[in-house]
């Protein structure tokens, strides 16, 4: 009996930690790197000025069968008509240029917000795990309170009332995401501080605060760092969503959510390209960050 059952159980246990899908992780790495590169150089390599309209309003993208020929012409630098790879929008702006310039807004906001909340959250989580119980309780109850707020609406309120700048969006998202990191770090700190190396440091007569910062915290960061990738993805979605409803960055900043909103009226009339490409960019980017985070999680569990 047991010979039959044991392998089954082992198989089931392994499967709790996700089926293998390594190409997903590689895809995630690629997208994460691409988005970071575009965040830095995107606006510089854009073929057209992201703020100056071209002479063509709502020019559709070139037909698929023309793409190879046009690509060849542009690689060889041959003289040709101007090409708008993703078409132009209702203001005559080149969509391709704006799509690759937008990570300067979307990815930078998401990254900035998460760096702030990762720093703040892990320090608070550490404090909640090692400091006096009343401090820990205070931090955790505050996190509860912040998490009881409806995320999107609170984001809308804070960003709009504070002036709809990139800085306020970063701070707002940082505030909303901090409790996630507090929770993750605290629970990991609680297990890590029982470990032998902590006792060893204590036996050496180190100060408690020093032990917490140099021994406990670095060992308790893994879950927060894995979450980092996933939360950046969510922050991109939120940034785009906020500007989509008119409570985020201001036009004419090249930003994916704003571009989708600008094309929303055209899509009802069958002009799909102004909204399709920026949305595709969000879709691929956020999925990339999720896949990357998922891969990290599996590696960490293994």
């Amino acid at each position, binding site marked *: 009996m047991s010979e039959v059952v044991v392998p089954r159980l082992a198989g089931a246990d392994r499967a709790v930690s996700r089926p293998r899908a390594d190409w997903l992780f590689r895809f995630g790495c690629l997208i994460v790197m691409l988005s970071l590169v575009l965040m830095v150089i995107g606006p510089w390599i854009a073929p057209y000025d992201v703020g100056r309209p071209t002479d063509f309003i709502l020019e559709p993208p070139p037909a698929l069968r023309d793409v190879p020929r046009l690509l060849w012409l542009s690689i060889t630098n041959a003289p040709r008509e101007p090409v708008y790879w993703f078409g132009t929008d209702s203001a005559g702006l080149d969509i391709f240029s704006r799509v690759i310039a937008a990570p300067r807004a979307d990815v930078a906001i998401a990254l900035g917000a998460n760096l702030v909340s990762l720093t703040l959250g892990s320090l608070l989580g550490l404090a909640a795990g090692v400091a006096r119980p009343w401090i820990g309780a205070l931090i955790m109850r505050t996190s509860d309170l912040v998490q009881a*707020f409806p995320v*999107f609406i609170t984001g809308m*309120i804070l960003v709009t009332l504070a002036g709809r700048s990139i800085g306020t969006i970063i701070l707002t998202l940082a505030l909303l995401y901090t409790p996630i990191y507090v929770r993750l770090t605290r629970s990991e700190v609680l297990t890590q501080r029982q470990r032998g190396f902590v006792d060893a440091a204590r036996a050496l007569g180190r100060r408690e605060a020093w032990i917490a910062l140099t021994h406990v915290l670095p060992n308790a960061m893994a879950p927060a760092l894995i979450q980092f990738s996933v939360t950046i993805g969510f922050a991109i979605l939120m940034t*785009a969503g906020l500007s989509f409803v008119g409570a985020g960055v201001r036009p004419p900043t090249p930003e994916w959510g704003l571009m989708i909103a600008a094309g*929303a009226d055209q*899509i009802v009339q069958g002009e*799909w390209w102004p909204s399709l490409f920026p*949305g595709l960019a969000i879709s691929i980017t956020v999925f990339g960050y999720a896949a990357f985070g998922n891969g990290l999680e599996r590696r960490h569990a293994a």
Partner: protein
Amino acid sequence: MVRFITTRLATTIIQLAGLALVVFFAIRALPADPVARLVGLNASRDAYLSSQKSLGLDRPVLEQLGAYLGIIPGSSGLLQGDLGRSWVTGSPVAEEIARVLPITLELITVSFVIAFLISVPLGMLCGLRPGGVADRITFGYSLFAGSQPEFWWALLFIFVFFAQLGWAPPPLGRLNPMSSPPPFVTGFITMDSLLAGNMAAFKDGVHHLMLPVLTKVFVLSGPIVKMVRQNMVRALASDYVLYARGSGLWPARIAAIALKNALAPALTLLGVLYGYILGSAVLIETVFSLGGIGQYAVRSVLAFDYPAIQAVVLVIAAISLFVYLALDVAHALLDPRIVS
């Protein structure tokens, strides 16, 4: 059990009270000038001051708080169940919210139920054979769907099903503007039209719900499938399933036993998800111009309508916290271990 519910209820109410206070002070601490927004930037100094006076913003903050809470004698506030009057329309906020809230609740509840009905069998199927083909495909789908901009998918669906195929109605509201809405009973269009026996309005209502619900189900199913699958795998690896197998029960019967134990912990997560969806319904409502509480929230925020903003946050937080509480109680009923 009674003690469990009482403590949870008390925590929820304290949280709501804290929330009301935080919202009140936060929106007043931010560098926004609602008076200037309401009277316009070119208004005279006198108009500005009189508007400030009529909104009560010239009073000290603590006095404003007293009026908001309703502890100043002669005023009616939160304690009397009064959410105040909108600064923009002048009508009671509670009435306005009662009109828009059912639209959102209808949309997300219908989407939730459908997503749940699709996800549970799917998650079960994957959980029964972890690592199999179905599991891999579903895993990819749930990772993908959980990370998508729903407002963009809504637009794509509009493009395909309205602009190209013509199956769906234009994304211009909850009902055809030409048809007359059923009398307001519950606020849920589908339910009201059935109550009034108005089959045409019912059909129209369902027709207009089609695309928003499709979008929501597409996005929502991802996390739910993942959750059901995870819990199912865990339940199938447990000792009671081993025992059931050893007793020679039918696989279908074993799956049913495991499912009950897999769904119980999923309930708590569903509560969290419901609250999250309620708070972010604004995106889908904006795309389809549904006029629910999400769009009401955007309107109030952009107009700096403080009473409406406070009320929206409070109402949405209250609903999510109570749904969460109800599902926690249901979880406790299914699994008595968590009460102790």
